[in-house]
C-alpha cells in the first residue's frame, strides 16, 4: 500500500524494491528476446553481412530475402512430409486419448485403476529407451516391403511416414489420456447418468454429450500434440534416417540446412528455423481461444 501511496503523492516511484524488480524483469526480457532478435536479424543478412556485422544489429547494405527463398525451396518437401504424419498422428492421439479417458473416468468397470496406471507409466517411458525396439519392430513389420508402394507408384520411403504416424500416435496417447481425464473428472456425473436413463448407450453418450463438450480440451491437446510431433527429431531420425529420403520430415532437413563444406550459412539456417516454426504458430492462432478456455478449466 505504501508503494501506491508514494506513487500517488510524488508522481514518481522511487521504491527500491520496484526498481530492482523492473531491472531484473528487463534483463530477463533481453535474455530471452536477444536470441530471437538475433535470429530474425541474421535471417535477413547476406553471408558477407553476417561475418562483418554484429549479430544483434541489422544491416541495411547486407539485407536480402534470398535466405527465405532458399529456405522455403529446400524445406517445402520436408514440410509436406511433416504435415503428412503430424496431422493424422495429432488427431488420432487426441481422439484415442479422449476415448481412453472417457472409458477410464466416466464409465465404471473392474480393473480400471490398473489400466490407468499403465497409461500413467506410459508417460514416463524415455524415448531413448525404445529406439532400438522400435526400429526392430518396424523392420520386422516390413511396411516398406509391401507391394502397395509399387502398385501405387509411390516411393517406398513413405513407409517411414506411416511408421511415424503409428509411433507418434502410440506415444501421444498416454499424455492425451491424462489431460482428457482431468477434464472429464470435472464433468457432471449426474448428467451422464441422466443420459443413461434416457436410453443412451455408453457409445452414444460419448458421441452426443462427452465429445461435443470436450472442444476446449481438444484444442489444448491438438496444439500440444501438434507442436510435439512437428518438432520431433528423434523418431524422424531413427525411422526415416536420411535427409535425402523422399519422406524426410522438415526437422531432418532443417538439421542439415545451410551446412556445407565451405562453412555454415547462418542466414539460411535462421530463415529455415522460422519457416519450420510457422505451422505451429498457425495452430496456436487457429485454436488460441479454445486453448485459453481449455487451460482455464
Amino acid at each position, binding site marked *: 500500500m505504501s508503494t501506491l501511496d508514494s506513487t500517488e503523492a510524488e508522481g514518481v516511484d522511487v521504491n527500491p524494491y520496484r526498481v530492482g524488480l523492473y531491472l531484473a524483469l528487463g534483463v530477463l526480457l533481453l535474455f530471452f528476446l536477444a536470441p530471437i532478435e538475433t535470429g530474425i536479424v541474421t535471417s535477413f543478412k547476406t553471408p558477407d553481412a553476417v561475418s562483418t556485422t554484429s549479430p544483434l544489429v541489422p544491416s541495411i547494405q547486407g539485407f536480402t530475402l534470398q535466405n527465405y527463398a532458399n529456405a522455403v525451396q529446400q524445406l517445402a518437401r520436408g514440410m509436406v512430409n511433416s504435415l503428412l504424419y503430424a496431422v493424422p498422428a495429432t488427431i488420432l492421439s487426441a481422439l484415442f486419448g479422449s476415448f481412453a479417458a472417457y472409458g477410464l473416468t466416466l464409465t465404471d468397470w473392474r480393473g480400471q485403476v490398473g489400466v490407468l496406471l499403465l497409461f500413467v507409466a506410459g508417460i514416463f517411458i524415455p524415448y531413448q529407451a525404445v529406439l532400438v525396439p522400435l526400429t526392430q519392430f518396424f523392420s520386422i513389420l516390413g511396411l516398406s516391403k509391401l507391394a502397395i508402394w509399387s502398385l501405387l507408384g509411390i516411393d517406398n520411403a513413405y513407409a517411414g511416414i506411416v511408421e511415424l504416424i503409428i509411433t507418434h500416435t502410440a506415444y501421444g496417447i498416454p499424455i492425451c489420456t491424462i489431460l482428457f481425464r482431468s477434464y472429464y473428472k470435472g464433468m457432471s456425473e449426474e*448428467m451422464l447418468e441422466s443420459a443413461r436413463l434416457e436410453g443412451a448407450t455408453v457409445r452414444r453418450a460419448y458421441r452426443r454429450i462427452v465429445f461435443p463438450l470436450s472442444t476446449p480440451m481438444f484444442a489444448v491437446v491438438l496444439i500440444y500434440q501438434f507442436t510435439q510431433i512437428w518438432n520431433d527429431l528423434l523418431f524422424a531420425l531413427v525411422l526415416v534416417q536420411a535427409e535425402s529420403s523422399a519422406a524426410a520430415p522438415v526437422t531432418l532437413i532443417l538439421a542439415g540446412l545451410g551446412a556445407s563444406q565451405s562453412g555454415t550459412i547462418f542466414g539460411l539456417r535462421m530463415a529455415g528455423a522460422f519457416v519450420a516454426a510457422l505451422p505451429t504458430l498457425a495452430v496456436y492462432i487457429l485454436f488460441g481461444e479454445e486453448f485459453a478456455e481449455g487451460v482455464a478449466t
Partner: protein
Amino acid sequence: MARLQLDDLTKVFTDDDGGEIVAVEDVSVDVPDGEFLVLVGPSGCGKSTTLRMIAGLETVTSGHIRLDDRVIDERKPQDRDIAMVFQSYALYPHMTVRENMSFGLEESTDLPDEEIRELVTETGEMLGIAELLERKPSELSGGQRQRVALGRAIVRDPEVFLMDEPLSNLDAKLRSEMRTELQRLQEDLDTTTVYVTHDQTEAMTMGDRIAILNDGKLQQVATPLEAYHQPANRFVAGFIGEPSMNFFEMEVQGDQLVHSPGGDASAGEFTYPISTDTREAIGDSVRVTMGIRPEDVEIVGAAEQSRDFDTTVDVVEPMGDENNVYLTFSTDSDRTFVATVGGMRRVQEGQPAVARLPEAAVHLFDGESGEALKNRSLETAEMTEPEV
C-alpha cells in the same frame, strides 16, 4: 402407469479397506399405480441410494425391485422405462432446451422427428417453457432449468418418475410454488412417482404416502397425517413436524411417570400422573419417552389440574400466525420444551407460565427400542383426515 414394489431391498457398499457399509437394509415398500411416494430421512439415511437402485444406477445387493410384477433389478437403466429428475438438473449444457428434451425420445424410441418435435412443444407448453425451447440451459434461471429437467422426464411418458431432491436448489418462495405445481402435475399425469427429500415439509405436503428412512432402515410407511399423529417410533415422531415433538425421558413408577433425564430420577423436574389405560399400554417397560407436540401444550392461566406445570418462559419466537414459546420447568435449568400458541397472544420472556400437557395428546415410546407404546388418542386426528 405401473405399480412399483421394493422387496427387502438391501445395498451394501464395500469401502477401500474391505469393510462393509450397509446403506439400505431390508426396505420393502409397495407403491401402487399413480401414487406419489415421498422417501424422507436425514442425510445419509439411504434414501438416495434406494432411488438410485430403482433407477438402475446402483446394483442391488439383495432383494428385488418389481415393476408391474416383473423383476427389474438386473435390467439396465435404459431398459427400465424410468425417468429421473436430478438435484443438479443434469441438463446437457451444449444443447438447447428442445434438444435436451428430445434427447431421451431420440435415444429410446423410433419416433419420427416430426412427432418428437410435437411432443416436446406440447410438453413445453404444459410447463410454461414454450418460449424457452431454443435457448441453452446457461441462459435460464434456476426455476426455468428445474422446469426443463421436469419436462425432459415428462416428455418420455415413463412408467415411473424418480425425483432426487429436485427443489433443494431453489429459493424458498420458488420452492413452495414448485411444490404445488409438481403435485398438480403428478395428479394430472397420474404417473407413479418416488420423490426423495430430506425436508419434512415437502414430505408432508406433497406425498400421498411418505416412507421415513433412518440409518438405511425403513421406519414407517404411512400417509402424512398418520405419520404425524401415529408415528411408529420415536424417530418418526421427532423427524416429522416442525417444531419437533417435545420428548421427556420418564421412569414408570406405579401410576405415574417420573421425569428422569439421563436415567436419573433425582434430576427430574416433574411427575406426570397416568390413567389406567395408559398404564396398560406401557406394559412391562420401565423407561419410557414421553412425547407431546408443541401445539398440544396449552398455556393456561393457573395450575388447576395434576397435569398442569409451573414453568418459566425462556425464549419467544414470533412466527406471525403463531408464537413458538420455549419453556423451562425452573429458571436455572437449560432444558427447554416448546409450546406453540396463537400469534395474537402476548407472551413475555422471563415470565412464569402454566403449561398443561393433556394426556390425550401424549405419545409414549419404549425407552430402549423407541417403539411407540401409545400414540395420541385419534378422535381429533380422524376428524382432520381428508376425504379422498
